[in-house]
């Protein structure tokens, strides 16, 4: 496969994703509109749904923060990529998609000293996994800064157990309060190492709203965390109410005998992401 096909796919994903809020999130917002007890909270959900409708119908970004472009590739090991550098091809797709799609460019060169905007939203954050087969699956997420800033990670002792994990996640959501644009999606990574747990949390937050973990114990943990988070009272936009989170998604991985890493990554009510299989 020529890498120019990857460029075109990434461009298309970038141009279409931010105006199309995933159906799982829309369905959850519509349910929350019916159950929210706070009048202000109800009005907020109504306006959010109206916003997402306008974005879809007019092909404009639901949120001005069209984020860091995150690309997750699953490349079939029997595929051969030709015609150039894969990473450059991905960044070219991001560049073209953000410029031609009228998306905001939010990346600065150097994080500390210069902070000059790169002008085309590159470089993207890119993860490549090698999988069996010949297909290439490309997942794009536009990860906004406001919710990303409310992330956290802790290396718990194994004795902290389920209660320790719950306490960390709930405290993280409570501290975040109105900042990450509630109703939010909460991504939780458990296990792995310091670096891997953060990626697990990211993959969790990008899972579609309405899909539970396949493991019954982790699915139960997701359910219990969602119930407890929605007792915090933060509500839509933090104005008070019952709908603080639309979903809690947990991903887990084996870990060291001494460790219980936990990471929490948040997303707003829009959480734009989409995939293409080539």
């Amino acid at each position, binding site marked *: 496969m020529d890498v120019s096909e990857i460029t075109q796919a990434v461009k298309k994903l970038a141009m279409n994703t931010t*105006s199309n809020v995933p159906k799982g999130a829309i369905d959850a917002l519509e349910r929350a509109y019916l159950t929210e*007890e*706070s*009048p*202000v909270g109800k*009005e*907020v959900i109504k*306006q*959010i749904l*109206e*916003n*997402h409708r*306008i*974005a879809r119908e*007019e092909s*404009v*970004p*639901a*949120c*001005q*923060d*069209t984020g860091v472009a995150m690309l997750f590739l699953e490349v079939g090991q029997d595929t051969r990529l030709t015609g150039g550098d894969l990473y450059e091809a991905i960044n070219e797709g991001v560049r073209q998609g953000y410029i031609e799609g*009228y*998306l*905001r*460019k*939010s990346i600065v060169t150097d994080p500390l000293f210069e*902070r000059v*905007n790169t*002008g085309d939203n590159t470089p993207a954050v890119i993860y490549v996994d090698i999988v069996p087969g010949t297909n290439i699956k490309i997942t794009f997420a536009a990860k906004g*800064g*406001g919710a990303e*800033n409310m992330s956290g990670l802790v290396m718990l002792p194994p004795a902290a157990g389920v*209660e320790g994990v*719950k*306490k960390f996640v*709930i405290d993280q959501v*409570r501290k975040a*309060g*109105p*900042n990450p*644009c509630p109703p939010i999606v909460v991504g939780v990574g458990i296990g792995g190492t310091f670096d891997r747990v953060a990626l697990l949390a990211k993959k969790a937050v990008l899972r579609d709203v309405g899909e539970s973990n396949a493991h019954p114990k982790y699915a139960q943990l997701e359910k219990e965390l969602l119930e*407890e988070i929605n*007792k*915090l*009272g*933060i*509500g839509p*936009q*933090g*104005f*008070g*109410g*019952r709908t603080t989170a639309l979903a809690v998604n947990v991903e887990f991985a084996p870990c060291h005998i001494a460790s219980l890493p936990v990471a929490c990554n948040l997303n*707003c*009510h*829009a959480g734009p992401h989409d995939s293409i299989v080539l």
Partner: protein
Amino acid sequence: MAIRKISTPLTDEVIATLKAGDNVQITGTLYTARDAAHKRLVNLIREGKELPMDIQGQIIYYVGPAPAKPGQAIGSAGPTTSYRMDSYAPILMEHGLKGMIGKGSRSQSVREAMVRYKAVYFAAIGGAGALLAKCVNSSEIVAYEDLGPEAVRKLTVEDFPAVVVNDIYGNDLYEQGVEEYKIGNGDT
């Protein structure tokens, strides 16, 4: 739900009537500024130089809009998280700023400055950039074009929807809202 219509510049009389939790629609001028622009504005004040716009009685909207598509006045334009401007906000209020629009909680020192300098903080709906852009009739860059989405823009808005979070009496809608709806103490 009752909605108050207000216009800019904000007067002390109008500000005195605004209470945390009030729904408002703002008509008039909003100046946009985020982190990078705030840093430059506050440096100008500290150096005793003039600001690129007159902030007397004005509102700063914490936003970095998306580029306008052909036919649009502005691209999607929802609020960014306000705490990042906390270290800059009090000195702007001291120099006449009367309102801020963003999302999320403010620091204690910003809240104290709002009481002292008689200024208010409004929240707009985060993530409703497509909806809010429809209230913007015009947009022009007044300073720092090199900052791209972070440039200072002068927006003309009509019935821009916002909620009063912090009033001049020390009330905070975020604290009141959580207090009213929380169940238990959140401990597991």
